[in-house]
């Protein structure tokens, strides 16, 4: 188990992390989710031992590692741009962690080679060991970086924006694959992402961060359905902000007939397009803000210029004193 207590990190006057506390359970797949500047990468680097907090403590299984260097923490770190060693073959990259061990603990050349081949098979790159990183695709490089991190048998795997530099298709395949690998190897993994979809799809728990503080920790379900703060509601999934601090998801808005409904809101339809299995309707609200709602694809969508009335099926109201959920009967 990894325990962070009161982690604060300042760069000059600016607090990148402000009194952050967090527990990571063994075997968990945890996402640090937030926009750039939220402190998520700094937090990951502090867990790794690549950066050190000004205040607070980091514990691995009850042992204080706050001042331990990265080399002594037994963590695997996958860098955003992979940081593969360009002048080494793929196999030498993977074997690097073993080849720099002290004499005595260092396996023989053949053993390192065998281990590298084994790991390359694991990441489905068997037979590519003699290539150089420049000869691989982005997705392949990512998996080499992963194999290299796994070679030192870390207790903890840390990934900084692991899919950030890949195109959408590869990203999707790799996500599923990484999820499987994490389960199969029984690792504890923490990854940083700014992509809420990625966090919700992969993680057991999501830590939503903004401006150096944790806004919410919860399962993807909790974070999406029960956002604790307006920021979480806004950042995770799509949200319409209606007057009075009411937040409502596009799929929780329905079109209603008649004007008697007290919860109804008047919209002028501006634009309609197909979004996956639904129609996405963009309407202009009376205060000129844009409201988005989804209409079942089997229904006839309204036309631009139409005046419609909508009602939230489900919404969340944030007031300075707290948050409240509403469910329409």
């Amino acid at each position, binding site marked *: 188990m990894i325990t962070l207590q009161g982690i604060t990190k300042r760069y000059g006057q600016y607090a990148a992390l402000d009194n952050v506390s967090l527990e990571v359970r063994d075997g968990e797949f945890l996402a640090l989710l937030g926009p750039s500047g939220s402190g998520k990468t700094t937090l990951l680097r502090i867990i*790794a031992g*690549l950066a050190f907090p000004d205040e607070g403590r980091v514990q691995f299984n009850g042992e204080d590692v706050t001042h331990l260097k990265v*080399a002594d923490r037994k*963590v695997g*770190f996958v860098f955003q741009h992979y940081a*593969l*060693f360009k002048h080494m073959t793929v196999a030498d990259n993977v074997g690097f962690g073993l080849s*720099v061990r002290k004499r005595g603990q260092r396996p023989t050349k053949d053993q390192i080679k065998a281990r590298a081949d084994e790991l390359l098979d694991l990441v489905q790159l068997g037979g590519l060991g003699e290539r150089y990183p420049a000869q691989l695709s982005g997705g392949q490089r990512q998996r080499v970086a992963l194999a290299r991190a796994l*070679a030192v048998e870390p207790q903890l795997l840390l990934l900084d924006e692991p899919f950030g530099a890949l195109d959408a298709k590869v990203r999707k395949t790799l996500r599923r694959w990484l999820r499987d690998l994490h389960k199969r190897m029984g690792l504890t993994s923490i990854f940083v992402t700014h992509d809420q979809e990625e966090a919700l799809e992969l993680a057991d728990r999501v830590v939503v961060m903004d401006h150096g503080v944790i806004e919410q920790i919860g399962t993807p379900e909790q974070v999406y359905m029960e956002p604790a703060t307006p920021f979480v509601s806004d950042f995770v999934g799509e949200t319409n902000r209606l007057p009075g601090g009411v937040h409502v998801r596009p799929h929780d808005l329905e079109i209603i007939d008649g004007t008697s409904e007290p919860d109804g809101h008047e919209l002028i339809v501006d634009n309609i397009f197909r979004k996956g299995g639904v129609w996405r309707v963009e309407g202009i609200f009376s205060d000129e803000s844009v409201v988005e709602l989804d209409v079942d694809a089997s229904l006839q969508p309204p036309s631009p210029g139409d005046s419609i009335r909508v009602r939230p099926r489900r919404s969340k109201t944030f007031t300075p004193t707290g948050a409240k959920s509403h469910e329409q009967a």
Partner: protein
Amino acid sequence: MSALSFIRARHLLIAAALAFIALFLVLPLISVFFAALQKGLAAYGAAVVDPDALSAIRLTLLVAAIAVPLNIVFGVVAAWSIAKFDFPGKSLLVTFIDLPFSVSPVVAGLIFVLMFGAQGWFGTWLQDHDVQIIFAVPGIVLATIFVTFPFVARELIPLMSEQGRDDEEAALSLGASGLQTFLRVTLPNIRWGLLYGVLLCNARAMGEFGAVSVVSGHLRGITNTMPLHVEILYNEYNFVAAFAVASLLAMLALVTLVLKSIVEWRFGYHHGSARH
């Protein structure tokens, strides 16, 4: 019509550039070899194997052999700390590294005379301990190091800044020590930039005249480097010998150029690209 005049303008510009290079670079270079061989190969050979000439060549090689490695160490250390760490006084250090480029070499030489000369700050102490720096080899080495020390550092700073810290951090996270990280990750990453800087540093170390001239004392066969020896021969109207030794320096320049081009083309290291 306009297309034709455009082509004409292009030809004119290229011709002007080529004529300029021919007049100011190629022709003088050819004339060096021409003058050196004016009285035949035998005279050329005699001038080169003259004991004073040989001693100048030896001294030049010795000075480069000391100055270049020291500047490699200094350049790598300076570039490493500037590119990979933040510390107070960083921009001041960058300015100081450029200082030898902005100071006249003669002034550089005089600085050392002022410090280590007989009337200099440490002059008395040095005399008491029987150490001679000015008008001796140590002074020449010091002046050469001063004049050449920006070359390696200037080449590496932009390169290392661009590469960032990721590779080093990756190596450290895999358990490598600082030295292992440097030897196995950093050094291979900068090798072509380093080689480029070393070539330029070496060319300047062997060819430096001004600073060395001030501290050398021009003792024939003792403190004369090749450029100083050329000057002496020339002042003695010994043109064949002067140009013969000069031709060796010219050949050094040509070899440097060729090696430089090989580094650029063969290994894809572009001097300009590291600056962005």
